[in-house]
């Protein structure tokens, strides 16, 4: 029996499909794909519920008003989640796990995921997008800043990967 992992879509076929989805977003929305924007809106929605007056007076989230969740990227994020869920369900890849190397504890892996997420959260706001919204979308639009972001992102990744390799050791 084949492992579920071996039934992945060919990388180039996937790239063609993603490129066509991105084009569809350009043609209809007039904006590309995005994930971090939706997450930031969710964070703002949580903060506005917990501390409305503080959040509405804050310089960044405040500009998004009382219902920051009513934004196209929040709906796109919901779509990404549901699309991933249905696809994983169909492919038999839906199960609880902490992905890590066998020699790495779950705790170390989760701490690294949390700190990595924190850095990515700050970096996405700073750069006004993530791998989807800035690197892929802006790259396809041939925007200078997006391509610099993409190049620096991968260069830093390769330069620092050695430090964090332990979490994947079997």
């Amino acid at each position, binding site marked *: 029996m084949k492992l579920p992992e071996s039934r992945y879509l060919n990388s180039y076929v996937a790239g063609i499909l993603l490129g066509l989805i991105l084009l569809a977003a350009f043609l209809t929305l007039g904006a590309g794909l995005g994930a971090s924007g939706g*997450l930031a809106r969710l964070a703002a929605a*949580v903060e506005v519920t917990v501390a409305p007056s503080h959040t509405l007076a804050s310089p960044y989230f405040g500009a998004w008003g009382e219902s920051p969740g009513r934004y196209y990227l929040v709906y796109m994020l919901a779509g990404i989640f549901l699309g991933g869920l249905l*696809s994983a369900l169909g492919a038999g890849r839906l199960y609880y796990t902490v*992905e890590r190397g066998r020699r790495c504890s779950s705790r170390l892996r989760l701490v690294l995921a949390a700190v990595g*997420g924190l850095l990515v*959260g700050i970096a996405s706001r700073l*750069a006004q997008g993530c*791998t989807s919204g800035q690197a892929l979308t802006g790259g396809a639009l041939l925007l*200078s800043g997006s391509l610099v972001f993409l190049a620096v992102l991968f260069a830093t990744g390769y330069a620092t990967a050695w430090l964090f390799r332990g979490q994947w050791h079997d």
Partner: protein
Amino acid sequence: MIETYFAADTLGTPGALLTAFVIGLLFGAVLEQTGFGSSRRLAGVFYLTDLAVIKTMFTAMVVALLGLRYLMAWGWLDLSALYLMPTVWGAAVVGGVLFGLGFVMGGWCPGTAAVGAAAGKLDAWVFLGGVLAGSVLFNEFFAWLEPLYTWGDVGVRFVYDSLGLTPAGFILAFTAMAAVCFWVVEFLGWRQGDAGEVFAQPPFAAFTLTFLVLALGLTLLPPQAFTSPAGSARPGDRELLSQIEAAADHVEPEDLADRLLRREAGLIVVDVRPPEEFAAFHLRGAVNITLPDLPAALESHKNLGTIVLYSNGMTHPAQARDALARRGYTNVFILTDGLLGFQERILKPASLRSEPVPPVTAARIALWRTFFLPGPKPAS
């Protein structure tokens, strides 16, 4: 020309939200099918054990950029209908460093983590929690981070303009680079005997060849294919600066005076000074729109007719004209030497001028003075 939700400013309407949801559904499904719901697979790109991320990302980028340029060449889409992120050099570099570090540590990026979380990966849920917390921290420390957020902001800028290349030339080089990378990666994989099943297979050769043919095809199109028939694509810096150098963005006072005099249809003369100054004196037929209101007020006249901006001098109108040109306006001009020049060259009586005035010019001056000056008309 397709009008996008962004161009119509209706991204918040139910139709746009539903469209975004459906696009997200497809995006998430393809990410999961490709195996990007696995942090091990994603992290593999940084340890050179699994290059799927690079292959998929560059393929998607090339497909979308070639498709976009062909849609533009066929007049289906215009860059002004798209949301273009500004280039902020400093923020892009610092953001790239922090993001790269976070990606390697966490094993996820936001979109793939959403897919991983849906597939039950607990490390993805923790990573998403980190992203939410990072967004809140960014908001709380925004006053402190703002200089970094705007560090090196140069507005919308295309990489071919930054490099001084033509769009088609850059796209050809970029596509060729991607195709060569794909061949090298597949060749090395084939030599190692794993994951090299696509190397030298006809579909793979056809795929890379198609990219090159499409990119070459773009170089054969006339350069104006990259600007819309209505000429409303955003100009590059080079184009904008050469217009300024050639003073192609100016209207001479005599020309404007005559066009106002004959009440030329489609001519909009905009006084950008404060309302008090406008009330004290303005060119007959001019409307008063202050600088902050210009984009909204002029939207319906974009690339229709002629828009002339004026102030006392030329600095503010020139800056406003520049900003509008970057938004895709090709019909905005500024009055040479502003209102001060207009007074000197149009309204000054012939008798007060230092140089001798031929009778024909004197008659024109008298006509202009009668038309533009308020109050009882001086007897000729």
